[in-house]
């Protein structure tokens, strides 16, 4: 009997998310791009030494995506690759396994804002090109394997970020 070959080619280097937002497309775009500091979990997800008080996307192709600390310092997260208000945004995510900015990393985040009837919006996010973490993926795995649930992961993240900041 001939051997049967089965292929499963799902891209492991991409994470996709989809949410429905009860807000018009324009509002969803505006809140995401102009008011990121009002909703991004800055207490946890920041890379600088200072307390982060804002997250900013410069509204143009090539613009910076960065956090601003309470001491006025800034730390880059990535760049704007595509700027198509109010429907499509592509950013690079240049934060490496040490939770530090590495402009060479360039994983990509595409966010689409799709208007739906009734004045709501479907937001689709893809974080892709995770292969660019390369060998460093293993290091990230070590961080995660030492910990169990999500709460512990957050602690590990904060500790790693602080260690990087102090080191």
């Amino acid at each position, binding site marked *: *009997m*001939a*051997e*049967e*070959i*089965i*292929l*499963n*080619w*799902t*891209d*492991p*280097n991409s*994470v996709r*998310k989809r*949410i*429905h*937002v*009860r*807000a*018009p497309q324009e*509002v*969803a775009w*505006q*809140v*995401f791009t102009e*008011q990121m500091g*009002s*909703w*991004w*979990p800055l207490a946890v*997800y920041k890379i600088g030494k200072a307390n982060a008080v804002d997250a900013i996307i410069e509204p143009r192709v090539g613009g910076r995506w960065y956090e601003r600390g309470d001491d006025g310092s800034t730390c880059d997260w990535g760049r704007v690759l595509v700027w198509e208000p109010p429907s499509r945004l592509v950013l690079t995510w240049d934060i490496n396994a040490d939770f530090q900015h590495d402009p060479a990393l360039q994983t990509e985040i595409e966010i689409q804002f799709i208007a739906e009837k009734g*004045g709501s*919006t479907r*937001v689709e*996010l893809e*974080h892709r090109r*995770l*292969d660019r*973490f390369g060998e460093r*993926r*293993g290091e*990230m*795995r070590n961080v*995660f*394997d030492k910990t169990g649930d*999500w709460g512990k*992961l957050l602690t590990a993240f904060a500790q790693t970020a602080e260690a990087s900041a102090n080191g």
Partner: protein
Amino acid sequence: MGVTRSAVSQHLQVLKAAGLVVVTADGTRRLYQVDRRGVDALRRWLDGFWDETLGAFKQAAERVAAKARRS
């Protein structure tokens, strides 16, 4: 597929040798998959990260929209 079985087999052997795919055998069936070792933990972490972050975004956008509807 417009290629012969043996050509497919040969291509898969090359991918396997390069560490790009893993193969599991079950009787006469061979399942070829992209090698996910190393990337799964990262994906799990990003999965939770984006759930939390997009959830916070949704709340903020809906708050702004509700306020605009009231005024």
